[in-house]
């Protein structure tokens, strides 16, 4: 009977595939956010070389990328990340708070607030800047279509939102800042769930006049699509975005990968890694290396979140929680 053989074949395939995926090498899983894909692709190769040159065992580094909030949620739900390299400290705080997978003081364990590279928020506009966008207040102009992701799900979008808020506070004063930020978001025709999604919407689908983007994301778009299509506008003031990194203690202790994981994160501060970061348009945290790339990154007045907004928990509570200020923008 033909069907019987067919069943047997299926059964064999099934049992083979259950036995199949077994890996011998040590693996390290880096759970990261969207715009770091290209950077870590190159960094992982560099680290593997460094690691085996220094007598380390053979290692496979796995990457997972997605919106920062979504990635944090996966780690909390049990995605076995050895290290996380996310868009903002608030997301790693959430892993500490909801998942209890690393101590609350994680950010003090590595130099520079655990941020081996920094970035900022800039504008990407279409070539020739047809709408004449120069600074944040131009984004509130009713005839400008602004592309930015949803700050409730995207880490990058929170930096965008907070940078606009800080600008508005000084330009319009405390009383009108909420109205100003609302006006910007009323100009947003597509609210993607992640930074990369917004970039795609702007560059590939041709929607919007200005993309509020990570500096590195904006430069990458220029590189991919050419200088003749877009240009970067640097606002008068922006935020010092510090994308932090951390070891997930519970996972590395269980897997026995603490040594490698620590070496991996420390290597992000090495000279080689700092150069790779700069190459991918992240601002190196090492001052001497940063100085070498001074002309690559436009000088801009940067403010620190901790100086103006306080901690992420408060920020989330006031701005991004359900019923918070961001939700109120859309209720009207």
């Amino acid at each position, binding site marked *: 009977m033909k069907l019987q053989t067919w069943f047997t074949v299926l059964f064999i395939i*099934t049992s083979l595939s259950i036995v199949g995926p077994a890996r011998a090498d040590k693996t390290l899983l880096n759970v990261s956010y969207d715009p770091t894909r290209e950077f870590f692709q190159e960094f992982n190769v560099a680290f593997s070389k460094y690691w085996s040159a220094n007598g380390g065992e053979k290692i496979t580094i796995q990457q*997972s*990328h997605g919106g920062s909030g979504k990635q944090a949620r996966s780690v909390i739900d*049990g995605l076995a990340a050895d290290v996380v390299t996310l868009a903002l400290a608030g997301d790693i705080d959430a892993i500490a708070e909801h*998942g209890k997978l690393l101590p609350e003081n994680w950010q003090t364990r590595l130099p520079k607030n655990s941020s081996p590279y920094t970035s900022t928020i800039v504008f990407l506009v279409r070539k020739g800047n047809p709408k004449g966008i120069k600074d944040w207040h131009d984004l509130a102009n009713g005839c400008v279509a602004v592309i930015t992701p949803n700050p409730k799900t995207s880490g990058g979008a929170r930096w965008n939102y907070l940078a606009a808020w800080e600008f508005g506070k000084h330009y319009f004063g405390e009383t009108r800042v909420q109205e100003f930020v609302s006006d910007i978001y009323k100009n947003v025709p597509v609210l993607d769930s992640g930074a*990369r999604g917004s970039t795609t919407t702007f560059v590939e689908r041709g929607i919007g006049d200005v993309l509020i983007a990570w500096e590195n994301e904006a430069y990458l778009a220029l590189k991919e699509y050419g200088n003749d299509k877009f240009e970067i506008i640097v606002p008068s003031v922006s935020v010092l975005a510090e994308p932090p990194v951390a070891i997930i203690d519970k996972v590395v202790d269980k897997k026995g990968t603490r040594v490698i994981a620590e070496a991996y994160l420390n290597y992000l501060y090495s000279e080689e890694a700092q150069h790779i970061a700069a190459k991918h348009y992240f601002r190196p945290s090492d001052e001497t290396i940063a100085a070498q790339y001074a002309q690559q990154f436009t000088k801009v007045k940067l403010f620190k979140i901790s100086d103006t907004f306080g901690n992420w928990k408060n920020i989330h509570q006031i701005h991004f929680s359900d019923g918070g200020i961001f939700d109120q923008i859309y209720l009207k």
Partner: protein
Amino acid sequence: MDMASITASSSHSPSRTRITQEPRWVRYTLITIALTFLALFLFVPLISVFYEALKKGVAVYIAAISDPDALAAIKLTLTATAIAVPLNLIFGVAAAWAITKFEFKGKNVLITLIDLPFSVSPVIAGLIFVLVFGMQGWLGPWLAEHDIRIIFAVPGIVLATLFITVPFIARELIPLMQAQGTEEELAAVTLGANGWQLFWRVTLPNIKWGLLYGVILCNARAMGEFGAVSVVSGHIRGSTNTLPLHVEILYNEYNFAAAFAVASLLALLALITLAIKTGIESKVSQQKGPNHEH
């Protein structure tokens, strides 16, 4: 072979007399409207997948589908499907056997429950497995203690796929076996056949095409599932990325040609599925032909 299917189909729809046929202009208008609708919603999207995939040339296309991450995604998708389909096959046969060959209370409730995954949003299908197996869920802490990985690993992806595809084979078999009734089986039992003989010799030959049809639908759905798998996957490159998730990743990497190349691979699978399905249908209608003359 071709002739046979043509005669089979023409015997199926007897030539209409003039009074039950619409005027020519009505026929042409209706056909035009229907085909325009299908063109807009079906054919053009299908063509555009292949157009976008091949826009940057065959070399880019081949590079995209032979990339190690793409191959790993293909392997994972095939693995998940190879586990999900046989399990749902056994379930479908067992459920259809119980439902169609016996009378018992609560049968309609059971049928509704089997249908349920069809109308449950894939997102919810993913969510419930997070609620059960996640670290914040019922079994998560216990599983972590015993080093068992369900979600963000292959078992979770298989479970989500299983859930989504539960109804397909059972739903294909139930009406078929209901229509066939129980006479043949009863006769075989009277002649002294035991349970397995009954199933392999009497029931299975009767339902084999319906079974295969169900398997093909189930297979297509299992390979293409996106929402549910996306929630439980963890998106680890080369490890827990299925083909549809790989499409999304490439799409998010400005790699549109590659995204559409992988997408076209999935579209091709869909087309092959439909071709096999059509093949089965014409085979079945051929078999039906002589049966009708009895």
